[in-house]
């Protein structure tokens, strides 16, 4: 890009007194993703109650998830950790017969220095079920980074790539009846080194992104994680990897350093702009010229028109929760929204480099100032700033939604973006559906003509006196 950089991105850092979910929450989506897994969270009642209450995981996940609840004897080291875990894992193997047991270490196992990594290989050998250890603790990580810790350990278990290049050119017959490739009934993949994509997405999203890349004749040789533990992709020297989630910096590092893979640093496939940029970054790596992406992006924007009219000129404030903030903010700026602040629990500038660059370019293109990016935000300070800025919408953790709403600010839970399907071209609509819902809802309520019941203009005030 030849555009002159008018503004540079700066990161601020605050006190870190922010509210976010515990990283063990990754269990709630990973157990669904990896169908033959069993997640054993080794922690206290506090951990279990969180999963049960804040995420409602427990009862529905029961077949493939459990807590190993640490009791007083465990904490005071009166009981033998190894024997205790062995009893539980044997029971799990007997009842559920999983292909892999994933131990999720918590703050408590960190504090009592329980040697999970030391015990796992021994027990794995003894009971014959692979055991992985991920330290998804709140001392070091926030919310979605739990997935990062799990994928990073899972990467170690991926088989080594044996035939790096020179795989026989694969031909697949597919009926492909769309105008885009109408004349082609046969889709051929270009001859290229293996590409593995990392990040946990629901399987229909996986297949959508696979299809996008197939249109560019790129074959995805595997995903980390795969639907089944047994189907982990082969990794090794000469294998290219690319992430789909912005919070996977540890996994990326592991793939580069331990598995000697080549990382394709790309923006994340969120929003039509991001998805296009993601594909455009991958194509040249394999010497492929990306085809008809511009028209495709254009078509998607065209189809979003009704939503764009709603959001244009509206302002949004990200309090910071799930680490997807930059990508969503970039997409919303491209949609014509004004982003006042992007709070984010943690930022790996190297892993997010391409995304940050795209954010910068998007701001230039849309003639917007680059929003303030605040790492480790302080919620009280943010609320104070919001009182001044009066955003139309705050994307926030669940604890603040009702209070902000009561102060006349439209709110959307950030976790919804974690759980909704937001990746790829077609799903850009779902992001805007979420974003516009509070705006449309408020409009509906205003139209009820009972505005005297609620405050109309966005007046934010706190109930407690501010000194």
């Amino acid at each position, binding site marked *: 890009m030849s555009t002159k950089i008018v503004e540079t991105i700066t990161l601020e850092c605050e006190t870190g007194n922010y509210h976010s979910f515990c990283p063990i929450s990754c269990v709630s989506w990973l157990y669904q993703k990896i169908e033959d897994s069993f997640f054993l969270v080794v922690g*206290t009642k506090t951990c279990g109650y969180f999963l049960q*209450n804040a995420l409602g995981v427990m*009862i529905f996940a029961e077949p493939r998830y459990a807590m190993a609840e640490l009791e007083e004897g465990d904490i005071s080291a009166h009981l033998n950790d190894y024997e205790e875990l062995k009893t539980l894992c044997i029971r799990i193997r007997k009842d559920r017969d999983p292909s892999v047991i994933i131990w999720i270490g918590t703050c408590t196992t*960190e504090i009592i220095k329980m040697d999970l990594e030391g015990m796992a290989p021994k027990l794995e050998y003894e009971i014959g079920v692979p055991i992985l250890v991920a330290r998804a603790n709140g001392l070091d*990580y926030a*919310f979605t980074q739990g997935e990062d810790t799990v994928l990073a350990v899972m990467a170690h278990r991926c088989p080594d790539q044996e035939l790096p290049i020179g795989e026989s050119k694969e031909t697949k017959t597919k009926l492909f009846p769309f105008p885009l490739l109408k004349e082609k009934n046969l889709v051929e993949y270009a001859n290229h080194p293996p590409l593995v994509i990392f990040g946990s997405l629901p399987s229909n999203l996986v297949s959508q992104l696979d299809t996008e890349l197939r249109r560019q004749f790129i074959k995805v040789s595997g995903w980390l994680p795969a639907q089944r533990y047994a189907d982990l992709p082969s990794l090794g020297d000469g294998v290219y990897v690319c992430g789909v989630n912005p919070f996977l910096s540890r996994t990326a590092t592991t793939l580069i350093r331990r598995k000697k893979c080549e990382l394709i640093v790309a923006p994340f496939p969120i929003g039509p702009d991001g998805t296009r940029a993601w594909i455009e970054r991958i194509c040249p790596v394999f010497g492929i010229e990306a085809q008809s992406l511009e028209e495709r992006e254009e078509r998607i924007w065209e189809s979003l028109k009704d939503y764009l009219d709603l959001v244009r000129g509206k302002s949004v404030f990200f309090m910071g929760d799930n680490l997807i903030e930059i990508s969503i903010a970039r997409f919303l700026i491209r949609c014509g929204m004004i982003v006042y602040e992007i709070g984010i629990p943690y930022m790996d500038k190297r892993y997010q480099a391409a995304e940050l660059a795209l954010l910068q370019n998007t701001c230039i293109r849309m003639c917007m100032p680059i929003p303030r990016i605040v790492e480790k935000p302080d919620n009280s300070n943010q609320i104070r700033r919001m009182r001044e800025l009066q955003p139309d919408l705050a994307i926030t953790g669940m604890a603040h939604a009702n209070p902000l709403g009561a102060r006349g600010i439209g709110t959307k839970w950030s976790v919804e973006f974690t759980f909704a399907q937001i990746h790829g071209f077609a799903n850009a609509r779902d992001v805007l559906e979420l974003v516009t819902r509070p705006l449309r809802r408020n409009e509906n309520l205003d139209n009820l003509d009972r505005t005297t019941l609620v405050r109309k203009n966005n007046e934010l005030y706190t109930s407690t006196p501010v000194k």
Partner: protein
Amino acid sequence: MKLAHWMYAGPAHIGTLRVASSFKNVHAIMHAPLGDDYFNVMRSMLERERNFTPATASIVDRHVLARGSRKRVVDHIIRKDKEEGPDLIILTPTCTSSILQEDLKNFVDRASIISDCNVIFADVDHYQVNEIQAADRTLEQVVRYYLEKSHTLDQFVTDAPSVNIIGILTLGFHNRHDCRELRRLLKDLDIRINQIIPEGGSVEDPKNLPKARFNLIPYREVGLMTAMYLNKEFGMPYVSTTPMGAVDMAECIRQIKKSLETLAAPILSSKRVDYESYIDGQTRFVSQAAWFSRSIDCQNFTGKETVVFGDATHAASITKILAREMGIRVSCTGTYCKHDAEWFKEQIKDFCDEIIITDDHAEVGDIISRVEPSAIFGTQMERHIGKRLEIPCGVISAPAHIQNFSLGYRPFLGYEGTNQIADLVYNSFALGMEDHLLDIFCGHDTKEIMTKSLSTDISPIWDPESRQELGKIPRFVRDEVKRNTEKFARRKGILNVTVEVMHAAKEALS
């Protein structure tokens, strides 16, 4: 270590935080790692609280592990003191940080010298007690702290009959509705309410607690310790009979009368309330429950069996109501309040066939599937178990769910409570004419009709991959996706539905 899937009662710090955030202008600080502060989420979401929950975390991270947290905790207390201006700050660890065994008491002493507000450390053993016990203890601790602090205590009791209601809490099961019902009851009995703690009370209030003539403890889970403390220190009588169900209502009111008479100080009141005639009138005319149980509607209860499970207060009261007021057989009653097992067994031994004391939901599930009752009265967990076994369940106890924070008035206590409970019981069974009609028309299920596609001459053919893809779509939208995809395929003249067609359909139709 034990394998756990579900907890009936939360960890100790939740109890402490519930007490703290029930009081007005009290700030709670958790000494906890990131993510342990989900209490705020529960309170904000369940109570639909408009204010920011006054509970924050002093974050425990690597830095704290290496250096100790004294500075951070003290700084945080002082900051919140300045920002929020609370009357009291309560510091609590969580299960996690309590292992660090830092001298939080010392931090609190240090901070209270500098800060304007009072600061206390919630003294609870996080591995010995659960949420309920911790709430009980913390409430007692706060009351004791303020009573011991105020040296010039006004010891005189009120001239008029007066009462404190102790144990109404935020996130409590129908507590707000119950509280309103109790106010009404006490007004009818011409008893002035001196204090209600902790919900909505100020921490300055406890020092006026001894002015009341007696204490009323509606739920024995939280408040009993406080009542016993006040009894010991100030000789205040207390009533801990839960006013739930017509029989216990009468019992509770009679005990209230007795408590008012125990104190030597004469009661100066303009009105003379005849307690017995009040009980009689309310039981027979205000509460419809007694009549309703005897009406023809309820003949269908004949021979029906139930299983009851919940906290000690609710499980015991509901069991008694079912057995002695509605004539329904209770096959098994249980509670997860293991610490209160003796009282519980004593209360219900004559009203059910079997008693179970456990906090393992699987055990409760096993009993339910063995007994196969016509209806269950339990917690959200039993409702879930019931769903799997296709047995209806009325929810009568915490752990609470968003459904238990209804906007409408649904008390469990008082005479209106008897009506609500009767409704709940009646509606939980498939009854009367409905039962009869279901037999004739073979059930409620109309699923078959719903999934049948609208008649079309040619249906596109789904290839195995797309069929598999369809299977991955959540069930509740699957039919819609299938219909839309086929509609799209038909319009485009596509005969075979592939995964690509599905994606294209989503793009085109969304």
